């Protein structure tokens, strides 16, 4: 694991400075001819790159933990109601007019927290994985329906456009404030998930064997809900819905590890950080009339075919 993690960390070290230079305005580090280059670097691109790392790490790490918990390589942290819950909170804040800059992220965190609480309430008693999955999907679809309802009630086209744009997920025009909002909960969430590594390893053998190895299912479930809730909820709060990272990254990284869930969490967090950083930089430089490609859309365009290939490979494996 350490070798894989080092490799990915090295990738971030290389990609990070490059991402600061890339964009609509290219900055030549040796001949900075642009007058406001420091402002572009330190006030726009540096926080944006940091935010990409934070959001990507949260999604990647949560994806790895969730796949380990559910013993399913197709699990994505977005499926279990936490991201849709956060999105619902943000949409309601936007609908209400979002008077301050804090309103949207705080409302999104409250929404994600609400989804977590609901998930714990419904799935908690049995502490089983099947009920957890069904409850999560129910919450996701409920939050999705309520979000659609809120959008349909938008008072004017401007509010509608603002909401829809936010939902697409992006890191453009973000500031240090967003970094400070997202980083602490994400890191705390990843810490909780990594601490559950031994229990997730035991889950490899099924729930019954895991219990015989000393795993307490109720505790593990609570840690999963809290960890993914914090890591994913914080990302949604500042960047909107960014899909497929939590699904793709653990897959790409798993082959480089010994495939134990515990050994996958940190490399997946690093891989997610790298993926979102690179994808966001590419979004900036892709020439697109009328603005830049939205990160959420770009990753979904990348992720859907990836998911299809994965399904085909799984089907071949089963046949």
């Amino acid at each position, binding site marked *: 694991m350490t070798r894989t993690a080092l490799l990915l960390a090295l990738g971030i070290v290389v990609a990070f400075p490059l991402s600061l230079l890339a964009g609509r305005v290219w900055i030549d580090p040796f001949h900075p001819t642009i007058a406001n280059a420091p402002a572009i670097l330190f006030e726009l691109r540096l926080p944006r790159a940091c935010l990409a790392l934070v959001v990507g790490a949260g999604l990647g790490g949560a994806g790895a933990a969730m796949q380990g918990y559910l*013993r*399913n390589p197709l699990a994505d942290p977005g499926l279990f109601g936490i991201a849709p819950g956060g999105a619902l909170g943000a949409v309601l804040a936007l609908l209400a007019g979002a008077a301050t800059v804090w309103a949207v992220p705080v409302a999104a965190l409250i929404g994600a927290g609400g989804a977590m609480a609901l998930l714990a309430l419904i799935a908690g008693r049995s502490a089983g994985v099947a009920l957890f999955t069904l409850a999560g999907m129910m919450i996701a679809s409920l939050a999705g329906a309520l979000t659609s309802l809120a959008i349909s009630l938008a008072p004017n086209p401007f509010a509608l456009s603002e909401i829809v744009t936010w939902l697409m997920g992006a890191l453009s025009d973000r500031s240090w404030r967003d970094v400070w909002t997202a980083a602490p909960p994400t890191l705390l969430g990843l810490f909780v998930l990594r601490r559950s590594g*031994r229990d997730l*390893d*035991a*889950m*490899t*053998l*099924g729930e*019954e*064997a895991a*219990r*015989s*190895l*000393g*795993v*307490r299912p109720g505790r593990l479930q609570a840690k999963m809900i809290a960890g993914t809730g914090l890591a994913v909820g914080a990302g949604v709060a500042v960047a909107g819905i960014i899909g497929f990272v939590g699904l793709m990254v653990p897959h790409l990284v*798993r082959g480089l590890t*010994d*495939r*134990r*869930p515990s050994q996958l969490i940190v490399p997946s967090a690093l891989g997610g950080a790298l993926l979102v950083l690179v994808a966001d930089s590419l979004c900036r430089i892709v020439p697109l009339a009328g603005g830049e490609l939205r990160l959420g859309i770009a990753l979904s365009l990348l992720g859907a075919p990836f998911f299809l290939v994965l399904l085909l490979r799984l089907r071949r494996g089963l046949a």
Partner: protein
Amino acid sequence: MSLSVHGAGVADRLAHADLELRPGELTAICGPNGAGKSTLLAVLAGLLAPGEGKARLDGRDMRSLPAQERAQAIGYLPQSREVAWNIDVATLASLGRLPWRSSANDDAAAVLAALRALDLDDLALRPVSRLSGGELARALLARVLAGTPRWVLADEPLAALDLAHQAALIAHFRALANQGLGIVAVLHDLTLAMNATDRVIVLERGAIVADGPPGEVLTAARLRETWGIEAEWVRGAAGLGLVVCQTSA
């Protein structure tokens, strides 16, 4: 060192059970489908709480025993052969070390010993997807042994194995019992139970109806009453063979 259940009742699956297991013995739990065998095993493993009664490990109530301590003492091999990720055999066996927070060296030594005991040295680096059914069964047992338990409780460990692998696995169980471990296995094969175990516990509709040495327990009368079959034991050079004549009406 003891593992016991007294007056255990679990809903409608296990009405009543009173038994005490002894180390160094290979015990079979037998009975028709739905008799409560797996339930009894799960109660003994501390995974199911007995309703009225008590499950005890070395005289201590299993309910108040910390999960980690219980996991160190009792190795449980579930019926499901699930291994969710395509890990290699050595990594699989190392999962048995999870209840111990021991040094990496101790863990490696225990895993190596478990792999050796089951003749898996050569397969240590092979991923589980490339194991045969018999190899996987051994690898899963190696996982249990790597935890150096004092008790091994196995739920139908021989299911889906061919005759040679069944005999080999039973031989492994026997060797473990000779080393002083207490082994309990749910078995459907009454011939194996008769020839290879020290003690047979027969369950019928959630209650223990017979408990003792196999020769005294698995009588023709017992087979008729509990399984509803007319059968007789025939002595051969290697032991007793069961000939089933017909199912009784």
